[in-house]
């Protein structure tokens, strides 16, 4: 099942962004926690088992699958390709938690995949805004993520992420080495964020192999905050009017 995946990165990204999965807010129905799997290995299709039970097969590069209900405690996730185990990883799961388990290339070695787990913060997001987390899971050194030509996520190393709350719109996103404008390792790509949701963006792949790509995972959250006011009424006494001062901004 192993095949090289070497389409030009930009084409791949466009496809990924248009078929990005949108997950509902968790119910924690069967288990008391949930896990999603993010497939960040270029050129592979991957099967996934949790504690020895297969939960998904044939996951393509940049795809996100889940949620899978799991129980809290120590869970072991096994990734395999065509029957051959790539690696087994375990991590501690707290009750009522949501996780992205990402299998990806590490920063250094070309041969051995790595697994990084990210806890999903599903706190309410302000009305009309999106919670945006960018994670570095690609085979590149620490990088800056430029958004609309400004560095909004600075010096992110493999296995790290940064979160911002941003207005809902489309952003131009590019990844460059920390502190530099070039070479552009990924993008710029158009990223349209979803409001009232956690938007997780994973940079994956290897620029030397031209397999840089993006996996996008959107999970609905609740909303916080009230609507924009039409009126702000903040004076009922008139005493301040009695303090009228020449040149004062209030009564100019």
């Amino acid at each position: 099942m192993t095949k090289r995946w070497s389409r030009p990165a930009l084409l791949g990204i466009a496809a990924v962004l248009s078929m990005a999965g949108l997950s509902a807010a968790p119910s924690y129905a069967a288990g008391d926690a949930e896990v999603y799997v993010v497939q960040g290995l270029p050129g592979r299709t991957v099967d996934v088992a949790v504690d020895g039970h297969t939960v998904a097969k044939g996951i393509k590069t940049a795809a996100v699958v889940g949620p899978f209900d799991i129980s809290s405690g120590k869970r072991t996730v096994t990734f395999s390709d065509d029957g051959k185990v790539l690696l087994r990883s375990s991590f501690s799961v707290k009750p009522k938690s949501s996780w992205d388990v990402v299998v990806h290339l590490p920063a250094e070695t070309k041969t051995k995949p790595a697994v990084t787990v990210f806890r999903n913060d599903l706190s309410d997001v302000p009305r009309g805004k999106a919670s945006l987390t960018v994670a570095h899971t690609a085979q590149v050194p620490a990088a800056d993520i430029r958004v609309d030509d400004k560095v909004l996520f600075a010096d992110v190393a493999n296995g790290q992420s940064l979160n911002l709350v941003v207005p809902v719109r489309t952003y131009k996103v590019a990844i460059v080495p920390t502190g530099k404008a070039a070479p552009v390792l990924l993008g710029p790509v158009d990223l349209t964020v979803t409001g009232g949701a956690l938007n997780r963006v994973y940079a994956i792949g290897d620029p030397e192999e031209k397999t840089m790509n993006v996996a996008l995972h959107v999970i609905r959250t609740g909303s916080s905050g009230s609507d924009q006011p039409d009126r702000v009424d903040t004076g009922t006494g008139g005493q301040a009017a009695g303090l009228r001062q020449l040149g004062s901004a209030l009564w100019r």
Partner: protein
Amino acid sequence: MLLTRRRALVAAIGVGALGLVGCGQPSPGPGAAPSAGGARAASASPSPDPVEDARVGAPAPSTRVRFVPTSVTLPGGASAPVRPARTVDGELVVPEEVAHVGWWDGSAEAGDPFGSTVIAGHVDSASEGLGFFAHLRTIARGDVVTVRAGRHSARYRVHAVRTVAKQALATSGSALQQDGDHQLVLITCGGGYRADRGGYDSNVVVTARPLGPAR
């Protein structure tokens, strides 16, 4: 850390006792770090493949500080508590206590990359006299305003002080915008005072730009 802070905010909103006062019309008012931990794997079943601890994704050190202000300090050192304030029937309901001011709970937090952080407060009230934001009558371009919450702080330099007709506050200018560059906006009442028309006819809008990142 982020999660903890957000929970604290929810709690603060929950217990915030907000009165409602308008320029004239009183109305009713509302009121862990990711569990880390690579566990050590104890694979009981005979398996040729070792079980490794998954790495737990961490925030990059450049994570921005962002916070809901709980106090504001004006030039000269005068300071006031900031309480969350909601919009009810189109009106931003600021604390009735005139020594307090209100942060619109739909606006940006201090330290956010986009949007106005909106803080509004009384210039005066019929029952309590002068309000904290009567201090704004002497604020000027270039002055520095600081907002704080716990050990966090953010400083802003005043960029403009404008008087805007009340009905134009939401429609003209960028005072309430949430999708442009980040700024701090302080709002109170001003302009002409006409008791028979419900109070002041204008809002005073102070806009200030961040002086470096929030800490």
